[in-house]
C-alpha cells in the first residue's frame, strides 16, 4: 500500500520514470483483462491505452486507503464495458468480430483450452468479468468487489453461476470424460 502511495505521488508530480513503472507493473493484467473481455487483440490494445490515460487522469481521485491494483482493474472493466457498448452499436459489428481473429499471433491452443475459452466467452458480461478476474487474474472476492464496486455476495453469486455454466458447457463438449479422470488421492 505504501509502495502504491509512493508510486502515485511520484506520478502526480509528473515524473516519467514513475509513470513508466506504473505502466510496466500493471500492463500485463490490464491487457489480459482487455483481451479476455473484448476478445479482440487490437481493441484490447486500444482500450489498454485508454485505461492508462484514464488512470493517469484520475490518480488524484485515488483513495490511498484502497489498493491500487483493484482500482486499476475496475477502470479496465469499465472501459471494456464502454467499448463493448460502442462496438455493439456498430452496424457491421457481427461481421467485424467474425472477420478479425481474436488472437492472430497466438499459437494454436489445445482442445481443453479452446473449450474453456469458448465456454467463458459465451457467458454474459457480468459472469465473464468476475470469472476472468478470479480464475485468470487471481483476484480475490474482495478485490473483485472493489474493482466492480459491487457487494462481495453479488460477486460470489455471479462467479458461481458462471462456473456452473462453464462446467455444463465443458460436459456438453465432452471434455469431462471418465477416462480423463485423474487418480484420486489414496
Amino acid at each position, binding site marked *: 500500500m505504501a509502495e502504491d502511495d509512493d508510486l502515485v505521488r511520484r506520478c502526480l508530480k509528473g515524473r516519467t520514470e514513475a509513470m513508466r513503472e506504473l505502466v510496466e507493473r500493471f500492463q500485463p493484467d490490464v491487457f489480459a483483462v482487455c483481451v479476455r473481455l473484448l476478445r479482440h487483440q487490437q481493441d484490447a490494445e486500444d482500450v489498454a491505452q485508454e485505461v*492508462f490515460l484514464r488512470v493517469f487522469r484520475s490518480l488524484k481521485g485515488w483513495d490511498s486507503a484502497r489498493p491500487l491494483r483493484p482500482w486499476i482493474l475496475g477502470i479496465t472493466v469499465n472501459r471494456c464495458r464502454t467499448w463493448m457498448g460502442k462496438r455493439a452499436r456498430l452496424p457491421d459489428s457481427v461481421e467485424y468480430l467474425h472477420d478479425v481473429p481474436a488472437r492472430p499471433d497466438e499459437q494454436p491452443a489445445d482442445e481443453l483450452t479452446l473449450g474453456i475459452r469458448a465456454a467463458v466467452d459465451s457467458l454474459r458480461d457480468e459472469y465473464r468479468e468476475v470469472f476472468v478476474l478470479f480464475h485468470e487474474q487471481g483476484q480475490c472476492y474482495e478485490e473483485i468487489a472493489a474493482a466492480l464496486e459491487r457487494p462481495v455476495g453479488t460477486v460470489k453469486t455471479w462467479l458461481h453461476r458462471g*462456473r456452473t455454466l462453464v462446467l455444463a458447457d465443458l460436459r456438453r463438449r465432452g471434455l469431462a470424460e471418465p477416462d480423463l479422470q485423474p487418480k484420486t488421492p489414496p
Partner: protein
Amino acid sequence: MNPFAREFGPEPSASPECAAFLERVQIALDGEAALGSVFELPHAEECADCRQTALAAQRLQCSIVPPVELPVGLAERILERAIDDRRIRIRTRWFSAASLATLAAGAVIGTLLVWPNSQPKPDSSTEIVALPPKEPSPAIANPPRFDERMADAGTAIASISRNAKDQTVTPTRNFIPQAPTTISPEMPSNLEPAAESIAEIPQNARSGIEPVTSTTRRAVNLFLRDTGVSPATKPKS
C-alpha cells in the same frame, strides 16, 4: 436450504445430495478445499452427472491459463500517449486561465472606457434637422466671465441706491439740526433748540408741509439705515 441452492435456486432435477455435492465443488474451486476430496464422497460414485461435473471442474482448475502475450512496444506507446495527454491537459489548463484573465481584463477596460461616455442618448423618434452653420460672434470669441458680471451688477445696484439716497437726503438736509458732534463737559445741559418744532406751527402751515415732512422722515430713516445707526426711538408724526 443449503447455500448453493439459495444462490442458484433449486434445480428441478437436482436432489439435495446433488446440490450439496455441487456446493463442495464450488468451495473447492474457490480455493478453500482440495478438489480431489470431492471424489471421496459417496455421492461421486452414486451420481454420474455430479461426477462428470467434478471432473470438468478438475479440468478447469488444472488447465493452465495461457499468458497473454503483450504486443511489442505497448508500454512505450502507452507512456508516450500518457505524456502527450498530460502535456495537453497542462497546456489547456494554462490556456483556460489565460483566456479567463484576458476576458476579465477586457471587461474591466471596456467598463472604464464606456462609463464616462454613458450620457443619455437623444430620442431616436425626434427628427434631427441640420442647422446652417453660424458664424462665431465676438462675444463667443471672448466669453463673459461670471465673476465680472456679478461685480458689474453689484456696482449698478449700488449706484442706483446711492442716487436714490442723494435725491432723498439732499433736499431735506436743511431740516437736520446742526448739532455738535462732540459735547464738552462745560456746556450747559439745557440748550435752546436750534429751531422750533413742526408741531408748534399752525395747522394750515403744517398741512402744507406735510408731504415734505413725510418724505423727510423717510429719508432720515433710510439715511440712518444706510449709515448703520438705528434711532433709539421712532419719531412720532
